[in-house]
């Protein structure tokens, strides 16, 4: 595993010896994840990448306390994952926008704020601010079905950010979008991440280019059982933009991730 220069202070998320075993309907045990160790520093943008079935979504869901680990621990700023969830430390963005179809766009963004007991005025103000951040202000009274897929996903990002969580967990949020829209959404996401100062992001994807373009570290996983194959530092300069994708360093890093995904020895002859 590549030691990262970023992780020097106490990590905001510390994953130790994490394993997950599912029992299938016919009684067989499936090792989804095996001995995962990962420290994530405050303010990092982590991309989790791997082939289907490598357990990257399972790992994200365990961090979010949506499913319990079999063994091992997850510590989030000194607390258990469950405590962190109950303290509302997480915003979660699913692969599908998961907007409630009976609510207008702005009411969808207000949903977490309603549940967390914010006052009516504050709900409106925060939801408006978040919608202007994702540049959907003029659509606040529309219903989700009146929006395109990319717009719906931006609403769901606004909803996840409305209560200003410290950690944003994203499970293949742009997986259902076409390539052009996805690249635009990547730029949007980096802009939003810049606006939400110090927010930590864990981003699950199966697009190599997306992982390299967005993140500060790419965690490459291998399947059966899910393991961390390699962690690759992405030292591309920020702010990143369309021209970043044309840098030689970008091609270099994507091919390193590709090699790591193939399970071969990664980037032999690299300068690290």
């Amino acid at each position, binding site marked *: 595993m590549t030691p990262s220069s970023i992780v020097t202070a106490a990590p905001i998320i510390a994953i130790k010896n994490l394993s997950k075993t599912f029992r299938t309907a016919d009684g067989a045990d499936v090792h989804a994840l095996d001995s995962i160790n990962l420290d994530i520093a405050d303010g990092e943008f982590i991309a989790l990448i791997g082939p289907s079935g490598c357990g990257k979504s399972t790992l994200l869901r365990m961090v*979010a*306390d*949506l499913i319990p680990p079999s063994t091992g621990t997850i510590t989030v700023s000194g607390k258990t994952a469950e405590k962190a*969830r*109950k303290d*509302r430390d*997480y*915003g*979660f963005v*699913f692969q*599908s926008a*998961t907007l*409630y*179809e*009976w*609510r207008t766009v702005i009411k969808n963004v207000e*949903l*977490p704020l*309603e*549940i*967390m007991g914010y006052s009516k005025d504050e709900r409106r103000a925060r939801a408006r601010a978040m919608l202007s951040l994702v*540049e959907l202000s003029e*659509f606040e009274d*529309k*219903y989700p*079905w*009146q*929006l*395109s897929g*990319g*717009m719906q996903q931006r609403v769901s990002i606004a909803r996840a950010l409305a209560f200003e969580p410290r950690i944003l967990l994203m499970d293949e949020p742009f997986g259902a979008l076409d390539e052009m*829209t996805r690249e*635009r959404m990547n730029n*949007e996401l980096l802009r939003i991440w810049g606006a939400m100062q110090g927010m930590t992001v864990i981003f699950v994807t199966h697009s190599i280019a997306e992982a390299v373009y967005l993140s500060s570290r790419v965690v490459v996983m291998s399947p059966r059982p899910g393991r961390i194959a390699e962690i690759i530092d992405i030292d591309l300069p920020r702010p990143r933009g369309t021209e970043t994708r044309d840098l030689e360093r970008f091609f270099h890093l994507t091919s390193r991730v590709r090699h790591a995904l193939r399970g071969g020895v990664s980037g032999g002859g690299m300068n690290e």
Partner: protein
Amino acid sequence: MTGQPISFTAPTAPTPPAAPTVTLARAVDAVVQYDGRTLAFDLIALAALFFAVVCWHLTNPLLTFETQFGSAFRNVTLQPVMAIGLLVCAGALIAARRPIRHPVIGAAAIALGLVCVYMVLAIVLGVNLSGLALGVEPALFRERLTDATPRDGLGAALTLSAPLVWIAVAAIIILWQPWTRLSVYTRAARRQWAALLIGVLVLLLWEGAIALFQIQEFLLPRPSVIAAAFGEVYPRLVSAGWNTFQNAFWGFVVGCGAGIVTGMVAARFVGFSRALLPIAIGINAIPIIAIAPLMNNWFGALNPASKIGIVALLTFFPAMISTVRGLTSVDALSLELMHTYAARPLAIFRKLRLPSALPFIFSALKVCTTLSMIGAIVSEYFGGSTAGLGFRIRDDAGLFRYPEAWSAIFIAALYGILFYLVVSAVERTLMAWHVSFREP
């Protein structure tokens, strides 16, 4: 999205209302934009208005006194029908939310409101304002008239109150504005022309086949004969239908209400619903109408409770099963979203489970409107009040008055359709977001 190289596809939303300099044509277009939602409200308003006018006609004590039926068909229960009809009409017109604003429309709304107040006062509190002004005994408006009844004051009071109904009708027409909605109706008619055509064809075939094959009237009367009989007997059928509809309605309220509440409790406790649901589905398969004679035994045939009980029993299980299904078949991701907010069960219920169960609940309620009319009518076949529609059908059929029996069946269908329309209008208002109501 200015200043960004982003252009997502524009949403397929209705175009915004026209500019401030609105010509009438523009305003009409603006109305048409909102048509799909309001068409159902128009239908309900019209049906309710029709009902109110028919009832007004039938409740005039002098008129009924002078008809050949005498006072036998004077039915005070028609007054509530009229009041409810008018209120439903006003409600549907208000709910349709027309975008045009004008002082005349405001005045019409106020006039309609005042007439409604007058009628509600007369019917609920027994205070007939016009009668009060002329010093007529209030009881005269409710009791059956005899030859000995002093009719002078009553006649004057009725003449005084008659314009009120005309004012109400005029106000309704002003609020309804049919001339601005002609294109809506022609479009709806164009969409339904095949159904209309088939309906007319069936009637013609029916008429022709009976003439051609010389089918006896006791087997199947001609539509024209039924229509003629209907014109004769509709006053008593409307009031008989109202009596039966009340049983259907209260049975529906009790049955569906209890069903929904039980469904909510069952869905909350998974073990409970697992134990209950198979039994409920099993009981639902029993032809419940078969226990109507037993209900008569328990509550007494003349007691409306025996009819309401049957209807409640008929509607309870569909409502309960659909409620459980709706509350438990919630999208898994939507539920996980709630968990990421650490939402309490009550918040999950109110903000997720209940809204996503509404389509299930309403489809059950719509089925139950029909079930409740069936239950209320058929249970009267086994004995009950002579004032009900089921009794009328059985009686007319038994006395070889087949055209009258068919007329009664037609009235039953009208009540059933109205009930269904009202429930689907409520559905439309509560679930305007739902996929089935989206404009193409």
